């Protein structure tokens, strides 16, 4: 089995963040990562960045609130259009 190069592993690492890789590619990537500290760091850092980004944005989404203006405007709009129906 020919192991993937660092360049190839960087593509596989990113791909693996979105889908399950086919067995041969997954094994090749894992073997390479076991032996290559640079690619391992690359992979861990990419994961860390995504984990932190998602964690932060999830807490922001939870706190998202309509402004009072928007709230009033939308309520009025619903009331007006409801009357017409």
């Amino acid at each position: 089995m020919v192991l993937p190069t660092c360049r190839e592993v960087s593509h596989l690492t990113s791909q693996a963040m979105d889908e399950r890789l086919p067995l041969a590619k997954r094994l090749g990537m894992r073997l390479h990562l076991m032996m290559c500290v640079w690619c391992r760091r690359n992979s861990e850092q990419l994961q860390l960045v995504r984990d932190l980004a998602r964690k932060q944005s999830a807490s922001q989404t939870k706190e998202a609130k309509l402004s009072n203006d928007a709230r009033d405007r939308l309520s009025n709009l619903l009331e007006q259009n409801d009357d017409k129906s």
Partner: protein
Amino acid sequence: MSESEKDSMSNGYLLTDPKEWVTKHGDALFGFALRYVSDRTVAEDLVQECLLGALKARTSFSGSSSERTWLIGILKNKVMDHFRKSSRETPLNEPDQLSDNDDTDYISAGPDAGTWHLNRRPAPWSVDPNDPVEQKQFWEHLKRCLESLDQRLAKVYNMRDVQEIEYDEVCNVLAVTPTNLRVMLHRARKLMRHCLEKNWIGA
């Protein structure tokens, strides 16, 4: 399906008075829209279109899902419409510009072709990802780094890696092929890692 079965299904969920929708679901809808469009005004407009659309479609509500789920479904359609319109103005799929010119990190020829260049080898990061102060700084730098990306890359990166939208759905919403999305995400992640390393880690 018999009439009585239909009846019992349609009685599963009921709609409340539209006057209460904003209070009950306004923030949730707004938060949902914000995951797709980061602009608050655009998100508000989408919520407005959703609520007006829901008002009109009220009589055809089947009761098979909750009011919230039903509203989110309508909002999702409005989001899709929004991206369909904007992709007509600035198409996202331009494969010729997406050719992978990420070779600068790796040795291009010789016996070591494909391995990291000496000065490009990833160094360890000395951060504590559980430290709330680090996290806050990370978020500020992430936003700034996103702004430095090509707009198309920033968009796919934000949707997938920040807002956690499913891969297939990002393809759908932005009308990008899975292959192109893969190339764009690889490129965006690489650039973001470099940018964060320089500004967040290196600071």
